């Protein structure tokens, strides 16, 4: 085709060429990395917690009368809640997935002070815990009611039984299927043995950006204290109706306590990923805006470039070039410029990504983003140049003979 003449023409007039190519390159670098971040965050945000998010809510009961008998109060509360209409089950526990605050301890395969452990999130529950959270027990069994112990600030020893998530099992015994951890003994607090009696499919920890977010353990302990958290699971669809009822019931059942911090699991998730969701929206806006600006920029530069060459176009037409040939010329010229731009852009995008991985600990972009961005920018370029190129075809051959 006419690549030869086009290239030579471009070499004579490098400015337009460099400007468009550079703009495409920088746009591509931004676009690829922004989309990479969007992808990474979206994947993060879509991870399931493993609990019945639609029907769970929780609240804190704060007793401020120091003489109160915590155990009696908690037992009474749980009975009342569990027997309320619309409530499926309830449990007293320390935290919920994605809450942002919680308890973690290290589990070891061998006892001893010098052994490296694995951090695991702890959930202190009773035998209703699994049903309340709605997690899936895939192997072994749940706790029995008589295996649950009351602890307070004084108690130090750890109960001898535990239920872990698949994430924990896979981290402790990476070469075996998760179920194989049943019956094994692991050690907490350096030397206290815990036998695993059950495996739950998934129950995320409280910290969504923690590398160990899939590692949790259910511990058969009720920790009595002045401030406790009740997690309540309602029958499907009853959550909003039941929430104020439970709050009122607890608040009016004794004068020396406050009910506070009532949240749904759904809101907890939203709060947990608030910044990620915002970043996704922000970056999407930037990518769209950037593409628009670059597109318009190319339209402008192409119009300018065409306007400068009206005499040349007129001459070519006078010498017999057809309208489609002129159109093809400009589309092809833009394609070559865009190609230079996207190749430069690919290198710039990778360089930018390497720097951001270094500096900000981001993830590397998926390889297919580069060709996807290249195709997008080729398309944007061609679309942008179409208008000016069409106008170029309308230049009359007679222009060649005029001196203006």
């Amino acid at each position, binding site marked *: 085709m006419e690549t030869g003449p086009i290239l030579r023409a471009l070499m004579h007039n490098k*400015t337009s060429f460099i*400007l468009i190519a550079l703009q495409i390159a920088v746009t591509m670098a931004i676009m690829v990395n922004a989309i990479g971040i969007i992808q990474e965050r979206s994947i993060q945000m879509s991870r399931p917690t493993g609990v019945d998010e639609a029907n769970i809510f929780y609240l804190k009961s704060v007793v401020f009368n120091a003489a109160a008998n915590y155990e009696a109060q908690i037992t009474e509360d749980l009975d009342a809640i569990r027997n309320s209409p619309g409530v499926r089950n309830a449990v007293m526990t320390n935290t919920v997935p994605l809450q942002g605050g919680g308890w973690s301890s290290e589990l070891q395969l061998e006892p001893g002070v010098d052994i490296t452990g694995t951090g695991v999130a702890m959930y202190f529950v009773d035998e209703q815990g699994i049903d309340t959270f709605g997690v899936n027990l895939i192997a072994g069994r749940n706790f029995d009611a008589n295996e649950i112990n009351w602890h307070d600030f*004084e108690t130090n020893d750890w109960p001898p039984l535990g239920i872990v998530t698949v994430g924990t099992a896979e981290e402790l015994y990476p070469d075996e299927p998760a179920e194989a951890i049943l019956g094994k003994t692991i050690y907490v607090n350096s030397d206290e043995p815990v036998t695993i009696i059950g495996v739950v499919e998934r129950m995320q920890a409280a910290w969504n950006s923690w590398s160990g977010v899939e590692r949790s353990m259910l511990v058969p302990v009720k920790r009595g204290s002045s401030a406790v958290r009740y997690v309540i699971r309602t029958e499907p669809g009853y959550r909003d109706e039941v929430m104020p009822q439970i709050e009122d019931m607890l608040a009016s059942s004794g004068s020396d306590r406050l009910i506070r911090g009532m949240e749904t699991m759904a809101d907890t998730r939203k709060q947990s990923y*608030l910044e990620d969701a915002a970043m996704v929206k*922000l970056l999407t806006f930037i990518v769209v805006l950037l593409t628009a*600006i670059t597109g318009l920029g190319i339209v402008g530069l192409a119009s300018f470039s065409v306007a400068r060459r009206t005499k040349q176009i007129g001459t070519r037409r006078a010498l017999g070039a057809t309208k489609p040939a002129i159109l093809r010329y400009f589309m092809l010229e833009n394609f070559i410029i865009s190609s230079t731009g996207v190749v430069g852009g690919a290198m710039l995008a990778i360089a930018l990504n390497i720097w951001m991985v270094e500096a900000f600990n981001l993830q590397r972009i998926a390889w297919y983003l580069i060709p996807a961005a290249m195709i997008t920018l080729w398309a944007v370029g061609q679309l942008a140049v179409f208008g000016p190129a069409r106008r170029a075809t309308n230049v009359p051959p007679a222009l060649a003979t005029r001196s203006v």
Partner: protein
Amino acid sequence: MFSYYVKLGLSSIRKNPILSSLMVAAIAVGIGACMTVINIDYIMSGNPIPHRSDLLYHVQLDSWDPNDAYDDPDRPPDQVTYLDGTALLAAGEARRQVLSYKTGRVIEPEGDDLRPFQADSRSTTAGFFAMFDVPFLYGSGWDKNADDNEEFVVVINKEINERVFGGEDSVGRMLTMNGEPYRVSGVLDTWDPMPKFYDVTNGPFNQVEEVYFPFSVSIAHELGSRGNTSCWRPVDGDGYAGFLGSECIWMQFWVELHGENERQAYHAFLDAYVESQKALGRFPRPMNNRLNNVMEWMSDQEVVDKDVRVLLGLAFLFLIVCLLNTIGLLLAKVTRRAGDIGLRRALGATRRAVFAQYIVEAGVIGLAGGILGIAMTWLGLQGIRVLYGELDFIARLIEMDWAVVSAAVVLAVVSALAAALYPTWQACAIQPASQLKAL
């Protein structure tokens, strides 16, 4: 001649309204994007206590696990244990010092109309208020005697004073917290350090606590921290006493030191203290004590969100795209005005004159772009508020001050001038003869 160039510049802008507006718009959008992120970064990395920030030092001792640093690669814990905090406090080697931790109290206002409510509290020694220059509306903090005697005093903030005492001077009155009466010794004025530097471990952009009472009282009531508590080994003894004697970190210790000599002296003291503890079998890790002043500590803890830094990088690249657009538009304008330039040159204008004219024109466009850019920045910050609105501290991040406004205009003018360099150089290179032929 300068005013003549300004006149020429303005008339040229008028003659090419579309091109000029596009240029102004391109610069404005680029500046808007950049300054929005810069504003947020500027506020987040601002100095919360500029007149004292190099006098206040945060103390870190490496009391952690011999097999595992608190934080890779070799960073000591960000909080101190009860044992170490109280020992350093008792030694009194610094000019001023404060030991504190975050906790919670339930306030029981008098009268049947007002229900009890929970208040974010800080359990602290007396030095807190003077060291951190906390503003008081009424009264003041307490003194060392109150600390030593475990007096039930409390400092409350303006909002709680409104809520419980109707906003009047409540110094000397009693406030019941968790069933016990505390004497109000002071009411805080509005206090909003950004970030909340004295406790970055538990929410660097949180509001400050609402209620403050003596550390000794809090310990006597066996109150734990409502912030982060981390232990690398299990608690040895039983109950709260066991917890106090453990290696769990849960409080913050700050000292006030003036000048390099005092800083070095204190560091030497810390090293000596750790040596003495090592003799008792504690501190198995190598010596790794740190003394960081406010800004050093903020930087060490990377208080500015990583996302902000990422956006900053992307925003600058965005500005570059906008500037490339501007260069193209300027080139187009120069080509259109080629005849004009040729004429001026033929009439005797030097290259320098042409250069000056077009640079000034670019400056005018930059100025216009900067002013429009301020509006764009405001829009951008409102957008941020909509996106991140649920975070309480966002309202403070989107305030524009004069520094940001001026920076916007300066950045716009500088960018416009930079973008204009190449097209203006091209303009100077236009030969008069080539243009006059076609006229």
